């Protein structure tokens, strides 16, 4: 059976048969070349490429064994090795030797020719008969070794040429695969970098979103806290520089304005609810417009009263001037409010304004559930006191405000008052206008009193706060205008007291209706008595006064 051609029984070989066999061998080799390019060209793993090529080479030559190495120059080690039918011990020794020889070559000890000769010498002991070195690129090189042919023939030059061609195909496939791996690794690295950057961006975006949410909450807080009570320009300014706004509480030198409708409480009882709402909304609407125009911070509405701060939360160096100008403008705006009231058949209303300057604490006041930007301090209470001394159409200011604003103020009169909580009398100034850049003044015009031909008997009671209290005193109304009167009375009632008057006719019968007023001047010499500014009167009283005034005009 050990015969190359067991079914050929006609020796000797003829030239034609030899040629035929050689032709078939060439065809087989060509097919191998084609298949090698197809198979290893489609692979991406250098180890798989070498394994497939080695098997196909072994099959092509019918070699009994074979080995292939790939050495990594940069790493100084064997990158891949594949073998067929090699002894393991011999293979390990061969691997070490190949690595050493290639490294020697790399270090310049030997050249590739010398390396090949050394390897071949080593391979002789491993029964490797042919060795084809190859260079993949500047980083990788290797070699293919084959054992004896099964047919027992030596490797011919044609075989060596075919082997070199196959090795060339191997280098191309390996070069492509290594480049693919490098690109793949770069892509993996790039992908990892992209993922890392994406994660960083995601975190940054989350932080940005959180910061935006915080900013939005902060802005919403500012809008909700100040939006209704500050001009939109001031709110915008707060939003633009939120760090400039300290809401945690701080001492501030500010000017406080408090306004109130005089006699409005007694008026409420005589009007329908919708009329009250119409009057108060009209009044507040007009006042808010004016206050926002002067950049005041409306801190609170207390019924018909308004508490306004100038100089907080945003600081205005001219806070006192702004407050006075605002107060004058508010009084001037009442003309329009009353014109509309008159048009609607509603009673006219009068407003008093108190202004004070001092150091207060401003900030968020309240509990966790409900906080409010607020103001506390003695100057606030004093402002309320000052306001309580006003009559309709009047602006009273403290000395501190006067000093803050300076000589541009027009003062009609000044008065000393004693008030609760303050040991010594304080001086209030009746402001009629402000010059300078504001140049705003209240219209002049003294109330004209008519001397009544017959005195009108009156009974009056001093009000404590808004309630009746104390005994009833008697007196006589001797002079009268639509806004006030002069009353002779034996009782000395302090100036700035609020009183309720009951008029009687000449027969001593009470005249229906109510009349309220504030004592604005006390006469202690001559006939004792006082001047009163009427703050509220019922229609019956209005009709009675009209009848008296018509008679005397």
């Amino acid at each position, binding site marked *: 059976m*050990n015969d190359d*051609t067991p079914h050929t029984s006609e020796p000797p070989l003829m030239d034609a048969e030899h040629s035929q066999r050689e032709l*078939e061998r060439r065809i087989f080799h060509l097919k191998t070349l084609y298949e090698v390019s197809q198979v290893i060209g*489609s692979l991406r793993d250098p180890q798989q490429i070498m394994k497939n090529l080695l*098997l196909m080479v072994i099959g092509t030559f*019918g*070699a009994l064994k074979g080995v292939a190495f790939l050495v990594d120059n940069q790493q100084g080690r064997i990158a891949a090795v594949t073998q067929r039918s090699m002894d393991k011990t011999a293979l390990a020794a061969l691997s070490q030797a190949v690595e050493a020889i290639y490294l020697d070559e790399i270090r310049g000890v030997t050249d590739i020719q010398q390396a090949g000769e050394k390897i071949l010498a080593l391979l002789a002991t491993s029964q490797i008969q042919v060795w084809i070195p190859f260079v993949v690129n500047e980083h990788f090189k290797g070699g293919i070794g084959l054992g004896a042919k099964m*047919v027992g023939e030596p490797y011919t030059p044609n075989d060596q040429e075919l082997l070199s061609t196959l090795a060339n195909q191997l280098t191309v496939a390996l070069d492509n695969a290594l480049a693919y791996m490098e690109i793949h690794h770069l892509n993996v690295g790039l992908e990892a970098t992209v993922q890392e950057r994406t994660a960083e961006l995601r975190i940054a975006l989350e932080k940005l979103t959180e910061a935006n949410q915080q900013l939005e909450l902060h802005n919403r807080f500012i809008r909700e806290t100040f939006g209704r009570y500050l001009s939109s320009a001031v709110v915008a300014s707060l939003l633009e520089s939120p760090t400039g706004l300290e809401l945690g509480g701080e001492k501030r030198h500010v000017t406080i304005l408090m306004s109130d409708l005089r006699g409005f409480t007694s008026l409420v009882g005589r009007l329908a609810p919708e009329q009250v709402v119409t009057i108060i909304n009209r009044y507040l609407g007009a006042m808010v417009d004016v206050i926002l125009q002067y950049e005041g911070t409306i801190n609170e509405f207390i019924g018909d009263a308004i508490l306004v701060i100038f100089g907080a939360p945003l600081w205005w160096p001219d806070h006192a001037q702004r407050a006075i100008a605002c107060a004058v403008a508010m009084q001037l705006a009442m003309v329009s409010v009353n014109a509309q009231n008159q048009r609607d058949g509603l009673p006219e209303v009068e407003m008093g304004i108190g202004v004070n300057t001092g150091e207060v604490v401003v900030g968020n006041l309240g509990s966790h559930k409900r906080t409010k930007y607020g103001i506390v301090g003695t100057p606030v209470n004093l402002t309320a006191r000052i306001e309580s001394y006003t009559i309709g159409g009047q602006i009273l200011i403290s000395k501190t405000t006067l000093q803050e604003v300076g000589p541009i103020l027009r003062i009609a009169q000044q008065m000393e008052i004693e008030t609760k909580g303050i040991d010594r009398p304080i001086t209030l100034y009746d402001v009629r206008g402000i010059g300078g850049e504001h140049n705003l003044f209240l219209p002049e015009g003294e109330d004209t009193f008519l001397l009544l031909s017959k005195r009108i008997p009156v009974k009056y009671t001093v009000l404590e706060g808004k309630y009746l209290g104390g005994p009833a005193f008697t007196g006589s109304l001797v002079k009268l205008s639509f806004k006030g009167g002069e009353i002779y009375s034996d009782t000395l009632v302090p100036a700035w007291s609020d009183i309720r008057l009951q008029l009687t006719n000449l027969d001593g019968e009470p005249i229906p209706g109510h009349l309220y007023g504030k004592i604005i001047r006390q006469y202690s010499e001559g006939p004792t008595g006082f001047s009163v500014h009427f703050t509220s009167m019922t229609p019956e009283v209005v009709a009675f006064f009209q009848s008296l005034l018509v008679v005397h005009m």
Partner: protein
Amino acid sequence: MTSLVVPRTELSREAHSGMFLHAGAQCIMSNDIEVTIHNQGDVAIINIKGDVTAVTGEAIEEAYRAVCLAGSTKLLLVFNKECYINSGGIAILVGIVSESQGNKQIIRITGLSEHFRKIFAMVGLTRYTDIFPSEAAALEGF
């Protein structure tokens, strides 16, 4: 008679997606090989159907190892007439035949086309195996 079927569907797609030329010069793609083993008397018969390549040849190697474990010393490789064997597949067979020499086994082959009989002779496989025209002829006197 025992039978072992070794489908090669688990082979990596990349590893055996090459193009192969059949003896009939048809160009087809081959993904599987089917190798079955059965015994007839003391002869282990390995039937091979499909393309024999460096990758699919591993199925034949597995079948050979199974036969060795069973202690068979007489092996008959029966190739389907449609079989295509490339140089990688020949390397597998060279390895098996070479190993069989150390194992004191006798291998006979049948089912090869004339083309592959010449190839087998060319690479030297016929120095260690006999090729028969039919399975019956191969079994006769084995």
